[in-house]
């Protein structure tokens, strides 16, 4: 063995610690410490509409409330209208997001990037069939009907990806990497 190889320390890969979203079983009540409220319903079917209406009714009893209904956060116009409303809100606001898992995670990501604290945001998922997946190779984020541990093709680089038990909260997506990388 060469002197260089002898000095190389073997890399120890720590065991993976899962980082998965924990959704509430039922919508949490409105935080009445807030002075204004923003309710966002994005996808998620009729159940999401029901939750958004209930939140809006509660919040209007406390302070000024804005309800935003979007089909999907991927739509340019929908996203622009969400960002316009968010830019008008003031600190003191509480934001409630309801919808399908993909859209809720992506909206939460936008909120975190806008500086939201955990206790300023409440979220509820009415449909868990889709998740946002982040391809570690081409860095594309896309919608996939799978879950942690599942396989899905990357629409951009065509690799077959394995979705890991790792949700990056700031990105609002699950990390995925080439499922066949270790096979020769």
């Amino acid at each position, binding site marked *: 063995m060469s002197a260089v190889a002898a000095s190389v320390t073997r890399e120890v890969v720590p065991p993976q610690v899962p980082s998965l979203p924990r959704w509430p079983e039922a919508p949490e009540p409105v935080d009445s*410490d*807030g*002075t*204004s409220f923003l309710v966002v319903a994005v996808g998620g079917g009729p159940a999401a509409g029901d939750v958004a209406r209930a939140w809006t009714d509660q919040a209007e009893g406390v*302070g000024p409330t804005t309800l935003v209904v979007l089909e999907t956060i991927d739509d340019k116009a929908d996203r622009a209208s969400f960002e316009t409303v*968010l*830019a008008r*809100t*003031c*600190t*003191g*606001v*509480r934001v409630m997001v309801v919808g399908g898992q993909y859209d809720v995670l992506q909206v939460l990501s936008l909120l975190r990037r*806008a*500086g*939201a*604290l955990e*206790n*300023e945001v409440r979220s509820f998922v009415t449909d868990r069939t889709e998740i946002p997946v982040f391809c570690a190779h081409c860095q594309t984020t896309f919608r996939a009907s799978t879950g942690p541990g599942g396989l899905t093709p990357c629409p951009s680089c065509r690799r077959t990806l394995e979705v890991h038990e790792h949700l990056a909260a700031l990105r609002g997506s699950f990390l995925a990497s080439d499922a066949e990388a270790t096979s020769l």
Partner: protein
Amino acid sequence: MSATIAPVVPEVASVPQQRDEQYVGHQHRGYAFGVRHLQVVGLTSLTREILHVELADPAGSPLAPYEPGSHLVVRAGEGRRNAYSLTGDGFNPRRYEISVLRLDSGQGGSAWLHDNLAVGDLLEVEGPRSMFPAAHEQRHALLVAGGIGVTPVLSHVRALARAGAGATVLYSYRPGHEAHLQDLRELAGDRIRLVEATTVEETGAALHALLAEQPFGTHAYACGPVAMLDAYEEAALAAGWPAGRVHLERFVAPELDPGSPFTATVASTGREIEVPSGVSLLDALVGAGVPVSYLCRQGVCGECRIPVRSAEALEHRDFVLTAEEREAASHVMACVSRGRDIHLDL
């Protein structure tokens, strides 16, 4: 300065050399935070009671950078060490600048600095230390200064101006006592808005108005007298701000009642020390010859934090420990906090 100030002592002079060995490559010789001597290179009276002090490395090295809102510990006469906020932006400083309010009702440290400092003197310092930093995720800052509390606020405003970031600044002052007002006015512009208030009523109204209109993602910071900080916290709560966005630095703590007598046990020796009413745990320990480091004696700076093994009760009266730390009952701030039958991990 009087001739009683010791010259640079050998161990202080050796600090840069140790640093060179420890941090090869990217840190300069002045990159030090321990106890050392800096030279007074400028003294300016900002008002009748506020002296602005500029300090530099005697060898001409740059100084260690610091987070905005940091303070410098300064030896202010025999046995006194006071903490003063640095007023610069902290980015590659060549000078440390502090503004010292003369408090004749205090324990003499500020008066000593006013009466004794002269350009060219060496002053013993430690730090800078960061106890009032900016939140990294902030999208905007609301900075509130009352009186001499302007010093850390000025540091934050300068750092934000350097970064091209936005801030709203409220400066509450008594006319004739407005240290650094001109500095703030010069920093104000498109992205930095300055609001001035000269009465308690104006300050209260401005706090309510400004806290209600800050963009989402704003963090607020305040430094000033106790009454102003109380008004600030109340206004922030009323405006719906979560505690995680509301930051403050106290330089004067509220008056405390003398408290009940109790016993503290030093775990390593088993020695029991009686702490009478009206005497702090810190004073009782120091009086008994137990070495405890301390600075502010007001429950503000965090220097006298002592680990606790067990206690029948702990009455926390400091502004340092978080709610979780209080719940854990694992530490006590000896200068203000009390309790019953405390076993100290000393």
